[in-house]
């Protein structure tokens, strides 16, 4: 973990998303797919907390050596400010943070699934898996075609690629999870990696549990500091010995977790009833208006 003043090399608009490339060799050298950075917001403004972004690209060699790219969806005060940032401006960056994806030692056929700009971390992973001689197949999902992140890059990095959009404007109509069974079947998937919203991740995890496919997932949870101090970004994860579960911090113990060990129902609250259970003897109206 390093804290640096990083100069912005360039900024780009990619569909609905923004991408920022930084000069941050101290971070880029150590970054692994799945890890993230914490970007400081301008002082003296009403939004205080650092914003956290997964690392999309970290170049160690070549003409881009020492650079780091991250992607975001400008939908809140902090990311809107960041979308206005320009080249040569400096950002206060801490990283790399969290634990990245683990690579399979024996298995070769990897299926990478992402939703929206979750693809940023997945494309970085695809590169690393390919350089380790693994087969990579990909499923990208998003609400609209504009929100499918770098489909051409995805195609370049994978053996096969399937795309799903909710409005059907690119690829199949549906979600990434809908395409999963078929793709997993045809590509002989042995390992699954995923990034996206937790409802989608849960569906993927249920599929993986059913087919007994090992899966690793980069989760999203509301983060305060990103450095393990505030304990706000926790995910309930069962212990290895099965003796119970712990609320582990997505920032330091994750954001990548073994999908089979996440207690999805507990994590997602499974829509708790609006009212507490009525006390005994209280007349319960089963259906209303009757």
């Amino acid at each position, binding site marked *: *973990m390093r*804290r640096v003043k990083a100069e912005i090399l360039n900024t780009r608009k990619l569909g609905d998303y923004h991408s920022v490339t930084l000069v941050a060799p101290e971070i880029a050298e150590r970054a692994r797919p799945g890890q993230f950075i914490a970007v*400081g*917001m301008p002082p003296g403004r*009403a*939004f*205080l*907390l*650092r914003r956290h972004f997964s690392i999309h690209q970290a170049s160690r060699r070549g003409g881009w050596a020492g650079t780091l790219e991250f992607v975001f969806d400008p939908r809140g005060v902090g990311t809107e400010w960041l979308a206005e940032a320009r080249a040569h401006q400096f950002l206060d960056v*801490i990283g790399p943070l969290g634990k990245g994806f683990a690579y399979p030692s024996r298995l070769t056929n990897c299926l990478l699934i992402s939703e929206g700009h979750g693809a940023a971390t997945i494309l970085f992973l695809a590169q690393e898996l390919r350089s380790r001689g693994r087969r990579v197949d990909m499923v990208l999902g998003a609400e609209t075609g504009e929100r499918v992140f770098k489909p051409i890059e995805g195609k370049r990095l994978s053996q096969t690629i399937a795309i799903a959009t909710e409005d059907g404007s690119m690829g199949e109509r549906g979600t990434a999870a809908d395409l999963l069974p078929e793709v997993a079947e045809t590509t002989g998937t042995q390992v699954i990696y995923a990034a996206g919203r937790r409802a989608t991740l849960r569906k993927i995890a249920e599929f993986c549990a059913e087919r007994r496919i090992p899966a690793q997932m980069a989760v999203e*949870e*509301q*983060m*305060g*500091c990103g*450095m*393990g*101090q*505030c*304990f*706000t*970004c*926790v*995910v*309930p994860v069962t212990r290895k010995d099965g003796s119970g*579960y*712990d*609320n582990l911090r997505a920032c*330091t113990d994750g954001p990548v977790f073994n999908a089979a060990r996440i207690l999805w129902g*507990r*994590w997602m*609250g499974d829509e708790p009833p609006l009212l507490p259970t009525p006390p005994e003897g209280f007349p319960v109206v089963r259906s209303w208006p009757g």
Partner: protein
Amino acid sequence: MAGVKPRMAVDLNGVAFPLPILAASGCLGTGREPGLVDLHRIGGVVTRSLTLTPTKGSPTPRMAETPSGLLSWVGLQNPGVEEFVDLDLPRLAKAGVPVVASVAGTSLEEYLRVASSLQGRPGIVALEVYLGAPDDERGRGEPFSARPDRVHEVVGAVARMSRIPVFVKLPALGNLVEMARTCVRAGAHGLTLIDGVPGLAVDAERLRPRLAAPVGVLSGPAIKPIALAAVFQVARALPDLPIMGVGGVSKGEDAVEFLLAGAWAVQVGTAMLVNPAAPFEIAQGVLAYLKGKGIAEPADLRGRLRVERGPTVREGVL
């Protein structure tokens, strides 16, 4: 006077810190992974509140950013006092940083058992009693701090048993000055003012509160004036009582304001989550202020706020 290097150490009636700036409870975990925080350049560490057994805490979401503030409710997640004493405390003690152990509980017995597990441990210079947890015995889900009789019971029991000085962290609610007097009568060595302010954030789109809790506590610059008023009013009523000021301190000037309002030392919370070097930078800011004004030590700032009119405000208007 000018040109003399000010002495930064502070003494809270026997509880000494090398710098007047401490890490507030909950913002440096239990000291296990200080990360980018340099423990050698900090006045002291107040731990995350400790319970008797490991506590898992609340469901998520546990936090939401609000204008100039952080709304959060973690629900006391901590490894338990035993693991803290075995694993984390030795590391903090080795770094030589004074430790203030925050004591929490949901029953009088738990407070006593946690406080007694912390007695005679090297490194711990004080206890800080956190009263924001729900009182399972008598409170019907209300925190201990809501009832003066319970505050008196808990603080009294801990203070009678403890050989280490006991601070009490109070929220700026109800008649604060009266509550402060209650704590002193019960045997408190000093106070930490203030605990977070209760707050609610609403997601109108989904018709849901933004925290699972759903009411959390607000911290950060948004609560600084509330905290300053609390410190000011209590310091005025009880000038000999050591007070640690906490709430929205992020710059050297903020800390100076607290010292002028009557604090003996200052804790930094939310700012540390953003800037791990905040406590040291704030201490540097205080030092620069003291040098500029030719003041010898932070204690000389205490209560130096010039108030033109007498105490016209009703006491305990909070």
